[in-house]
């Protein structure tokens, strides 16, 4: 027997994209289709049976291999849609893999969502029992830990109030508190720390750290919060397009992620990006960053002028695009939204645009500290989202003379927003 607590061998997961319109199929439609064209139906069925039919296949995961040793905390990072959540769902047995095998030695607790199964009509006390049971605790365990759970959540006064009367903060605290008191051998945690206030997040991270150190629990942890990953995990896996592209020391993994994965710069042709949302009648074709003199750049200094050029193209011929709104947003590498620049905010009149062209967004006095930042871009026409690409470009900010004093901010290492201000001596 090897000493790995989890062995993942050649895991792949395929989804068939058969119904584009999403949602569920109505039996009625299937039946009417059969009645309308019985031969087409038979033909499709035979094709399906002998495997000729061209199904649109989508491999959410492809050949994932890794081992986890007892007591390890493994982080998983990757862009949206990279397959992180699918992997966690397979590990927690919610959905089966299409190929491959996973051996798990121990009790698994999965926390893919905070407060799974919480019922608004039930009181806090009742929800603790229900949620605990759903998360796999025995009644005895819940009774034992009941007081600790209540204390951790700080909801003593509201124990017998229905959960629907809770503030969202209380709700999350209670839910997380139940989860934090699970004692499985392996804990699988998805982006759950993203909710709740910062103070409570810290408390939870602390609790998770404490538990792993003392009791040697194994944790698999997915997050966009690089700081949390860095603090908790010794090893981190980087996923991209359903594949495991890196597995190793956390610092190296984060470096790999920011350089190669965070923004898909290898696919330089923005037009090839598939991870777009919206109607896609108008597409964003290029994003460029320019400095004051109009040169293309990828690094800028705090306090300088940054111009973001969005090139777009309509698929509907030469028709003028009426009522357009352009938006770019800036977030930190850890995924925190910092600010949004939108023509909706700056231009009272919506813009009428040519069917093919460029628009520039000029940011004076770039209020960002040293670090790396990620851009997202969005085009709306008549309030409808036409194209929306997240993580469309990445840029770096070097220290610069933001305050006009020749003094660079040294208070904060890492991504942050700078604000002009003054101190007055009264």
């Amino acid at each position, binding site marked *: 027997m090897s000493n790995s607590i989890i062995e993942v061998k050649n895991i792949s997961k395929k989804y068939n994209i058969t119904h584009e319109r999403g949602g569920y199929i*109505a039996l009625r439609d299937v039946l009417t289709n059969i009645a309308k064209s019985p031969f087409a139906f038979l033909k499709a069925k035979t094709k399906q049976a002998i495997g000729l039919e061209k199904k649109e296949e989508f491999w959410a995961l492809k050949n994932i291999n890794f081992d986890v040793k007892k007591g390890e905390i493994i982080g998983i990072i990757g862009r949206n849609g990279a397959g992180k959540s699918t992997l966690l769902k397979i590990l927690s047995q919610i959905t*089966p893999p299409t190929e491959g095998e996973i051996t798990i030695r121990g009790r698994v607790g999965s926390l893919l969502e905070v407060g799974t199964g919480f019922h608004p009509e039930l009181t806090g006390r009742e929800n603790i029992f229900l949620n605990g*049971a759903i998360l796999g605790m025995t009644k005895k365990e819940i009774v034992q830990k009941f007081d600790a759970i209540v204390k951790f959540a700080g909801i003593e006064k509201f124990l017998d109030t*229905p959960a629907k009367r809770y503030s969202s903060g209380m709700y999350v605290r209670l839910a997380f508190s139940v989860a934090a008191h699970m004692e499985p051998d392996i804990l699988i945690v998805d982006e759950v720390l993203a909710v709740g206030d910062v103070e409570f997040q810290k408390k939870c991270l602390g609790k998770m750290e404490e538990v792993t150190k003392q009791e040697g629990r194994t944790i698999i942890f997915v997050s966009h919060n690089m700081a949390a990953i860095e603090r908790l995990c010794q090893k981190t896996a980087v996923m991209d397009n359903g594949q495991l592209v890196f597995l190793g020391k956390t610092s190296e993994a984060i470096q790999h992620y920011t350089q190669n994965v965070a923004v898909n710069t290898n696919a330089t042709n923005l037009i090839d990006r598939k991870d777009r949302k919206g109607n896609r009648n108008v597409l964003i074709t290029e994003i460029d960053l320019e400095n004051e003199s109009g040169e293309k750049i990828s690094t800028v200094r705090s306090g300088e002028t940054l111009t973001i050029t969005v090139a777009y193209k309509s698929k509907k011929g030469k028709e003028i695009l009426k009522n357009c709104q352009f938006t770019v947003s800036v977030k930190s590498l850890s995924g925190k939204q910092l600010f949004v620049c939108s023509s909706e905010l700056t231009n009272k009149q919506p813009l009428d645009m040519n069917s093919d062209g460029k628009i520039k967004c000029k940011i004076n006095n770039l209020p960002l500290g040293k670090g790396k930042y990620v851009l997202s871009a969005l085009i709306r026409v008549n309030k409808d989202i036409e194209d929306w690409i997240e993580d469309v470009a990445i840029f770096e900010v070097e220290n610069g003379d933001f305050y006009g004093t020749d003094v660079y901010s040294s208070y904060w290492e890492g991504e942050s927003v700078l604000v002009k201000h003054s101190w007055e001596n009264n």
Partner: protein
Amino acid sequence: MTTPTTVIRPKKIFSFSDIKEIWQYRELLYFFTWRDLKVRYKQTAIGVLWSLFQPFITMVVFSVFFGGLAQIPSNGAPYPIFVFVGLLFWQFFSGALSETSGSLIVNQAIITKVYFPRLLLPISSVITKLVDFAIASLILVGMMIYYGYAPHLIGIVLIPILLLITFMTSIGLGLFLAAINVKYRDVRYVLPFFIQMLLFVTPVIYPASIAGKYSWILAINPMTGVIQSARAALLGTAPINWLLIGLSFLAGLVLLIVGTYVFKKVERYFADII
């Protein structure tokens, strides 16, 4: 050291380990049932009394219209108690069937986030309805005292068997519908209509004898056997027909096996398509 080892593979074949697994998760089954009961009565003014009120009023209305005005025969027993025995089992059956078939959809938020044997959800739905049955039986006890019926020993022995048949029939059919419901949501529109139709081909408001020489057709429906036998055992309207009970049991068993098979076959993919 006893560390449970789980192997996750593309497809799992139905095995007896499933039954073992349900046993391991029995506490969760209890909590699901407890939740359903608790939530149902939380926002109602008269709470648990609904379980008494509903069958009672139905019985009164049926007695007035079918027994009183339409003069439907009741094999010698007073019509109210005759129809109530039928209603008691019928409401358990129809309630369990509709709750079971919707159980996965209602709990989809949990299904997509946590693993547990999915069979727990339909099973807990039926148990919830069994609790209703138990509460509504109190009315029957009252009526039996009022009309002066003493239960035979055989009747008391027979009731659990009849409940088992009802359980198998409703959960078998319910599992089948629940599995289809995940993919085709038409089920929830068809089902109320389907149940209403079933009511008329089951001898709830009339005795099976009314169908004359075609009454054997009714016997295909396992609920016919259940209701006929319940009346025979409790009211002595007719001798107990063991063959009919045997047939109903068999039909119920077949439904249970088919339903479980279909359910297990699509179970693993619920989270993907729900």
